[in-house]
């Protein structure tokens, strides 16, 4: 297993996440896409740490753990917003959310 294999995996995962976030209409699925992109970033952190010059200290792992924690918080906020928006609009279809239209 080499660094480039891992980077290809993470890039693929990021592209899938981006595709999901851009194309799905359901708000929950957009959140899932965002989580996938975060996971791709985490894979990159760990991959660069594992194949980098300083492997003695687990810096990549720690950054990944922080990112997971922040992603959890973000997911909580995002889900809460989805619920709040659903209560207001009675839908989770993001095409309907156009109140910020200029």
């Amino acid at each position, binding site marked *: 297993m080499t660094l480039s294999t891992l980077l290809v995996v993470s890039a693929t995962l990021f592209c899938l996440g981006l595709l999901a976030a851009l194309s799905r209409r359901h708000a929950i699925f*957009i959140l899932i896409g965002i989580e996938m992109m975060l996971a791709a970033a985490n894979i990159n952190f760990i991959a660069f740490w594992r194949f980098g010059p300083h492997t003695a200290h687990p810096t990549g792992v720690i950054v990944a753990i922080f990112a997971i924690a922040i992603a959890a918080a973000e997911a909580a906020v995002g889900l809460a917003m989805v619920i709040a928006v659903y209560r207001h609009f009675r839908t989770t279809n*993001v095409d309907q*959310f*156009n*109140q*910020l*239209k*200029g």
Partner: protein
Amino acid sequence: MNSWIMNTVWLIPATPIVVALLILSLGKTAPGLSAVFAVIGQIAALIMSFVAFFPTLHAHGFRGVENFTWFVFGNQSLRIGFVLDPLAAAMMMMITLVGLCIFVFSIGYMADDKNLSRFFAYLSFFSGAMLGVVIANSLLLLFIFWELVGLASYLLIGFWIERPSAAAAAKKAFITTRVGDMGFFLGILWLYHNSGTLLFYDNGHGCLESAGLAMLGTSATFIALLIFCGAIGKSGQFPLHVWLPDAMEGPTPVSALIHAATMVAAGVFLVARVYPIFSVGAINGVTSSLAVVVWIGVITGLMAALVAVAQSDIKRILAYSTVSQLGLMMVSLGVGGVAAGIMHLLAHGFFKALLFLGAGSVIHALHHEQDIRKMGGLRRAMPVTFATYAIGMMALSGVPFFFSGGWTKEEVLHATSSWPSSHIPHYLMLVGVVLTALYMSRQIIYVFFGNRRAAEEHPHESRHVMTIPLIVLAVCAILLSVVLTPAWPWLESYLTGHAPQFDSRLLFQPMILFSLGLVGTGIALGVWMYHRTGELDPLQRKLPALFRFLENKMWIDEIYDRTIIALGALFAWLSDWMDRYVWDGIVRDVGAIGQLFGKLTTGTDERVINAGVDEGTVGAQGFGRVMSRWHSGQIQPYLGAVALGMLALLLLYAWLG
């Protein structure tokens, strides 16, 4: 004793002025009270003048001086002060005594006037200003009071403001005297420039004392002539005499005050006061400035006496006689007879006030008729007025022995006869004496003798309040001759600062008989010419051209109208034209340029700036519209944009390196 008198001498002019302000502040509420106040103020001034008179009696040539600094500018200080000498004391006695008589007379004469308080306020102010002129020890202070006298005369001549002729006469008096005052002021400035002081007497440093006079040098002649300009204006000398007869438009007591005690006396007094300046560099008592004084006086005296012969207004005759007498005084001063001139001024003050008040009494009795041709036979109806008027007439004509005017005129003629330059003034003055006797007898015959011409009137003697001042003045006019005789020339010695000596031989001189003959000729001529009081004046019948010439005052007013006033009118018209078409045109052109500029900026504003801003806003609107399309409000296009942006950045990174 002298110091406290000098410290308080300023109260003499201050009292009438304060009284005037007091009366004015009372308003119209109590006209009777205003007369009482004015008379009390005048009595107070008279008493104080009397007190101030005493120290000048004790020492011959007494001169008290009180100077103080008015203000300081730079390292120079302007000092003014008061002086008390025989000249000032005698003048003050005359002014206050004559003034008091006139004030009392006014109570009766002006009784019906609704502006009585204003009248008495002005009279009081007039008297106070004149007293200030007399005791001023600085040419500047004298000038201030001099102008106050001019102001008071303006207010009083124009007292009956509802009459256009009175307003015009007041204006004429004010402006004519202003012409002379301009010269006077220039003289003051020149004097200050040369001598550095305007004080008359200042322990040897004053401008009339030898050290000050030495600093004047050759310019003394010009300074003296400039100062004399002021005297010409104030004392009604030729060519500025034209205001004096017109000043008859004022109430008769005012005419009396102007002609006897205050206004016209100021000019003669001024020349007497600054006489040392006139006589700088005198050879045999003759200087060129004094010669000018003599000739101006001669012209004035003779011209006014001639004009008086052909006047028909009772007050105008007296006015021209005043002008003539003032000319005589000027001649006397010019030939060196200062004491004689001042003595004539003092005596003239009494008898001219008497004549004017007598004329006022006649006018009052005839309900403001002033034309002597419509009077006549008043001697039975008004015996007191007639008797006092006759005394005044004889004093003015110069009947010797019993009347003050006779002695003083004698002195003046004596002074002119000994003038070394020329004898012509002396002979012309003798002609003037005959003319004076002639026109005074003409007047008295027309007014008091003959048949009643105005039969429908019922004239009656005036009230006591008017006749008593007449009697007092008549007594003064006679009693004054006691101190004027050449046998015991007390007043002359008093003025010149010598001890009087009694010499009865001097009482009868050939000169006296000669002048008696002259006066007698004049009166006889008058009686012979006018005893048949026909409709036409005898002179008018015999010499109509001459009469017309004199009746119209030698057309001097008309000449002024055609020359100086026409020139002024032309200049005014030219200025008006310049103003209207040249200056206004320039102003209008400047305005037009401004308007043009305004139009230009308006155009720029509307066409360029406004249009530009409009274009800008339209553009901004369009841009906004375009940009607002990007704001779909939907999350996913935004996200897509972010992704594209990131991709672009990545590509840029990869491409750059």
